[in-house]
Structures are given as structure tokens and as C-alpha cells.
């Protein structure tokens, strides 16, 4: 008897769609993946929606509305494995910058009728709401890492995703260190690898798209950045971008924040 194909679902919360589009970006692998799994729920690519339970749910985006906070529980209940893909789902994403501001005030400024808008005051990662089996980092995710996670989980093994710093990727690619050689501030030493050291390859400092690496030491990095002339405000901004709400980065940014007068 032919084995039944595992059912894959792709869910979206507040995000830019870039991570789920990485699945469509697997051009050559796309039709192979599609033949190995039953794509049961993927509204961006198809109207078909097969009922759960699903063997693997990929979740993109962060939780920003009361409705989404309920919906993620429905997703969890229907999923054997739940994997978050990208910085929004894993750390709240760029929209978590609002966690440090007053959202009600935002809305009254941006929208003429803020009473039409229903939103939560914070953008939170999926793991704050439900149990997550695996978190795939990146803004956006690396498509090869995504393929690795899908095939690992469908084959009942642990995904092989490196959790060392971007610095290791720079060395592997023989990029000259932008911080040492040019004095360019760089988050590489505290950031998880995965992008292929993209920005240092363009002579720019890393800005932390993949979030904090395992056992990162941001205070030591901050001290180094201050020696390069980065101000306290600059430190707050550096740690407060695409992974602003990731614990390690959030704590570091708060340490350097001036108290409100």
C-alpha cells in the first residue's frame, strides 16, 4: 500500500508574506516538494483547503489582533508539528517596534477613524501563545533552511540548522571583517548565521535579521560598538529592528534606553 502523503499547511498572521513566498521561490524544488506532501492549506497559492489535522503547519507572522490570538490556538490543535518561519513568527517582527510605543496614539494619528481599527497593543511571537516545535529564524528565512526543516520533520529527525554567529559565515566566505578592518558597526557577533553573511559581503555591518544567536553576549558587543563611536541611542536602534522583541535583543536595547523625562 502506498504511504499516505503527509499534510502540510501554511498559515499567515501579521507579516509581509516574504517567508511563505520562499516556498514558491524553491522553483526547481517546488514541484518535488509538492509531490512529496499534500499541500492541504496554503491560501496564497490555492483555494483548496483540506480539513485538519495537519502533519506539519508552517506559521508565518506575529500575533497582533484579538482574533489572531484565538486563531493560533485552532492552528495548534490541528497540527502535529508547528514550525514558525521568520522573524515575525519567531520574535514579533519589525512590527514589534510598536511594543515600545503607545499604539492607541499611533492609530489616532494614522487613521481618521481609529475606532474602526481593532488591534492589540503588542506584536508577539507565536511561542508566547502556543507550544512551538521548531523556530526557523530570519528576515526572511533562508529557503534551503526551510527545505531542511520540512524534510527533517517529515522524516522524524531533528533539523540541522547551525546556531553559530554570522562571524563564522564571514570567515567561511572569506569576507574581511567590516568591524575590525573598517570600523563599521556590525551585529554579526551576536546574530545567528543563516543569511550567508550578506551585508558584510556588501561592506555593510550586519543588522541582525536572524536574531540573537545561541548564548550571545550583547553587552560585550555593545561595549565594542561604543568604542567605534556608536551612541547610546544608536545602540537602542541597533538592537531594536527586525528582532526587537527577541528577549536577548530587547533586554540589551532597554539597558541603553534613556528614561522618559
Amino acid at each position: 500500500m502506498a504511504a499516505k502523503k503527509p499534510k502540510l499547511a501554511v498559515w499567515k498572521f501579521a507579516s509581509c508574506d516574504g517567508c511563505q513566498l520562499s516556498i514558491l521561490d524553491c522553483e526547481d524544488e517546488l514541484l518535488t516538494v509538492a509531490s512529496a506532501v499534500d499541500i492541504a492549506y496554503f491560501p496564497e497559492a490555492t483555494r483548496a483547503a483540506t480539513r485538519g489535522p495537519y502533519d506539519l503547519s508552517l506559521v508565518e507572522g506575529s500575533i497582533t489582533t484579538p482574533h489572531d490570538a484565538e486563531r493560533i490556538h485552532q492552528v495548534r490543535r490541528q497540527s502535529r508539528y508547528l514550525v514558525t518561519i521568520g522573524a515575525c513568527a519567531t520574535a514579533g517582527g519589525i512590527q514589534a517596534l510598536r511594543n515600545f510605543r503607545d499604539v492607541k496614539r499611533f492609530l489616532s494619528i494614522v487613521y481618521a477613524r481609529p475606532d474602526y481599527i481593532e488591534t492589540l497593543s503588542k506584536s508577539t511571537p507565536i511561542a508566547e501563545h502556543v507550544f512551538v516545535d521548531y523556530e526557523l529564524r530570519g528576515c526572511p528565512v533562508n529557503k534551503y533552511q526551510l527545505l531542511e526543516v520540512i524534510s527533517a520533520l517529515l522524516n522524524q529527525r531533528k533539523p540541522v540548522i547551525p546556531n553559530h554567529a554570522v562571524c563564522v559565515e564571514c570567515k567561511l566566505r572569506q569576507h574581511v571583517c567590516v568591524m575590525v578592518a573598517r570600523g563599521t558597526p556590525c551585529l554579526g557577533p551576536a546574530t545567528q548565521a543563516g543569511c550567508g553573511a550578506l551585508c558584510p559581503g556588501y561592506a555593510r555591518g550586519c543588522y541582525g535579521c536572524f536574531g540573537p544567536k545561541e548564548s550571545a553576549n550583547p553587552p560585550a558587543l555593545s561595549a565594542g560598538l561604543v568604542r567605534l563611536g556608536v551612541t547610546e541611542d544608536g545602540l537602542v536602534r541597533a538592537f531594536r529592528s527586525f528582532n526587537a522583541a527577541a528577549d536577548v535583543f530587547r533586554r540589551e536595547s532597554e539597558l541603553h534606553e534613556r528614561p522618559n523625562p
Partner: protein
Amino acid sequence: MSRTLTIDHVTRIEGHAKITVELDDEGRVADARFHVTQVRGFEKFVEGRPYYEMPAITARICGICPVSHLLASVKACDEIMAVRIPEPAQLLRQLLHCAQFVQSHALSFFYLSAPDLLLGMDGDPAARNVVGLAQKHPELARDGIALRKFGQQAIERLAGERVHPSWTVPGGVNKPLAAEDRDFILGELPIARSIARRTLKFFRGALDRYRDEIEHFGNQSTRYAALTGVDGNFAIYDGLLRFKDADGNLLATVKRPADYARWIGEATMPGTYLKAPYFKPVGYPAGIYRVGPLARLNVAEQCGTPEADAELAEYRQRFGRMPRSAFLFHYARLIEALYCIERMEQLLEEPDILSPHVRATAGVNALEGVGIAEAPRGVLIHHYRVDEQGAIRWANLIIATGHNNLAIRQSVKQVAERYLDGRQLTEGMLNRVQAVVRAFDPCLSCSTHALGLPPLEIRLLSAAGEVLHAVKV
């Protein structure tokens, strides 16, 4: 009794939306609404960030057309620095932009819309996707995948990453083009061009099957807005924003980007995060205008490349100088893809394209900057004000799907009037209502950050809000 039909979650669009159709006492369509149900708040949380971070931050608005946001953003930043960027950087930015149009249009046509067009609006929804397309029309699906890949690879060659490129910076770009990358893209180009040609030929041949759709898909009289070159020809990276009426008369030319607010007003509507821009001289809500492929071809005199111009002439011969049907967005998109491929070839053959002079540097020399570019879905405006240190004090972003908001609403109403039977919810009707929305190729991530609701749900509500009938598809 009046009723409301809600299509809760339009699939195969980038971002998520909900459609409500309101019926009157006789079961006729009274009104239609298009809702977007999430908000991310970019315009506010960027306050206080230095202007040069804006390209990287705003590229995160959208994973489908990050390049458009990057370009509108760096153009606004160029104005804040008050620099004229080096000519080779202009060319390289244009090249990147064309590559993104090709990939985005390929995504829209082959992955999102072709399943409806080729597998039949009334077909089995479970098979109506790119994988189903691959089974039924393997060559076409392969072409679609290859064309998108061409655009994505060119972006990767230029900017290092597909989804959120980091190569475009205020003042230009931060690395010249390498000869081997130019040769690589030039080498792939003929295949992309033949795919675009063949798809156009195929689409033209299939047009007769869609007479009904052409007639009823947002076949409406609206104004159009698009960038054009100084010569009035098609332009996507830089140019003058022009408005034309439904008969092709020029209504306005926005000479300086900073003047856009004289012509465009923004309104908020109930139940949606998507703002509704309108043509100011006419006012809200009558000031409907459309942007995107249909509008661009209507506003432009010519494309400016030989094959695309020949296609444009044929298109106009069939549908007139100012076609109106939203269905023709698909046709226009294919012509634009061909144009972009031709234009990429011209750009790659420019003698200066490998020049190392690709970046101007400067500090803050103006406290305000506006960048306007065409995104694949239409006009995109980034407007920033900064303080003396260059920190953003205020930002306004007007996104393509926003410009189309009022027109999408009107189109949904028109389709619903034609295909909706007040008592019956058929698969074909649901698909057509959704397909008209997809024809605009709306990007709701861009416009607000929407996405992801439970599976399609249609609800019949009484005037009092009581649920009379609910269907989950």
C-alpha cells in the same frame, strides 16, 4: 429582507481580505465592500529612526515587492541628501526594478491567476493552483516557474538576496555590477524573452474565451494614474506622475514628487485598515482612480521598446486606446513583463553599466523628501520629514493597492450584480468575485499588513445582523 454576504478570506492574493456583498430587500446587490483586517503601523514606528535605515525597514513591508519599497525609499532619501545620484547607479536601480517587475508579474500571472484562467472558473478548487496547472499544462507551469526564476536570479545577482535586498542605498547602490553577473543575466535573457512572447501569444489566442469576463470584470469608467517619462512614454523607476480621465484626457501632471498631496487625498472607511486615496479635485468618494498595469498602459503614449510597442499596438487595436476592464490587467501585465525584459537588455548593454561610480555621499541637506516609483501593482509614494540630525519625524506611505481601493470596491459590486443569485452561492460565483479582486493583484501586506483568516466563509446576514445562513468552503 436585506442581506449581507461575506467572503471571509480571499485566497491566492498577497495578503488577506474579506468581501462583503450587501443585498437589498429584493435580493439585488445594494453595495459591496472590500475589507483588510490587520495593521502593522510602519508609518509611526519608524519615527526617530535615521532616514538611511528607511530602505531596509520599509522593504519589510512586503515580501513580494520589497524592491519597489526600497526604490521609493531611497529616492526619498536622495532628496533628503539633496544629491543627484551617479548615472550608472540610476541604470542599476532601473535594472533591479525591471527584474522585480518580471518576477512579480510572473508570480501574479502564473501562480495566482492562471489557475483560474486555464483550469476554468467553475473547476474543482482543490486542483486550481500552480500544482494543478503543472499537471494540466506542464509547459505553461514550467514557463511560469522559469520566468519568475529569471527575475529572482537577476535580483540575486544584483542585490544578493531575493526577498529583502540590501544593495540599494541612499545616494545610489553600494556595489558596482560585475562583468560576470552582467553576462550571466544577458545569457538568461533570451529564454525569458521567448517565454514572455509565447505566453502573450497563448493569452491572445485564449482571449475569446473570456468575453464575458472582459465585459463584466470591473469594466468601469475611472481615472488613471501612472508615472511616465518626460516624453509621455512608459516609465517605472522615475518620471512625472500623471492623471488621465477615462477618455484619455490629461487631468494633471505632478511635476515635483513633493506636490502629490495637491492631487491625492486619503480617506478612512469603516471595517478596513486600508485607506482610500482619491483624486482631490473631484473629492471623496467620487474621485476614483486606478493604478497598476492597466493604468500604466493607458496613461503612457508608448512603451519605448520595439516588441512591447508592437504588442501594445495590438492590445489597443482590440480594446481601444483606453481599455476599461479590470480583466485586462492580466494582458497588460504580460506586455509589461516583455517590456521589462527588453529594457533589461538595453540597460545591460549601456557602456556605463559596469562603472564603479555608483554612489554619492552626503548628509542631511533637506528636511523633507518624497520618492515616487511604480510598484508592479501601481504608484508607490514614500514621503518623509526629518530633523537636522536626519531622524524621521513623520512618514506617509501611499501604496498601490490603496489607490485601487475604491475601484476594487466598485468592481466587486459590478461582478456581484452579474453573477450573484441572491438565494444561491455557487462555486463559480464565489470564484468570480474573488478573481476580480485578484485581477488587481492587490498586495495587502503592503497596504496594511493583512493576512490569514479561517477558511473561506460566506455569511448571509439580515439587516439586523442575524445570521440567516453560513457556508464554509
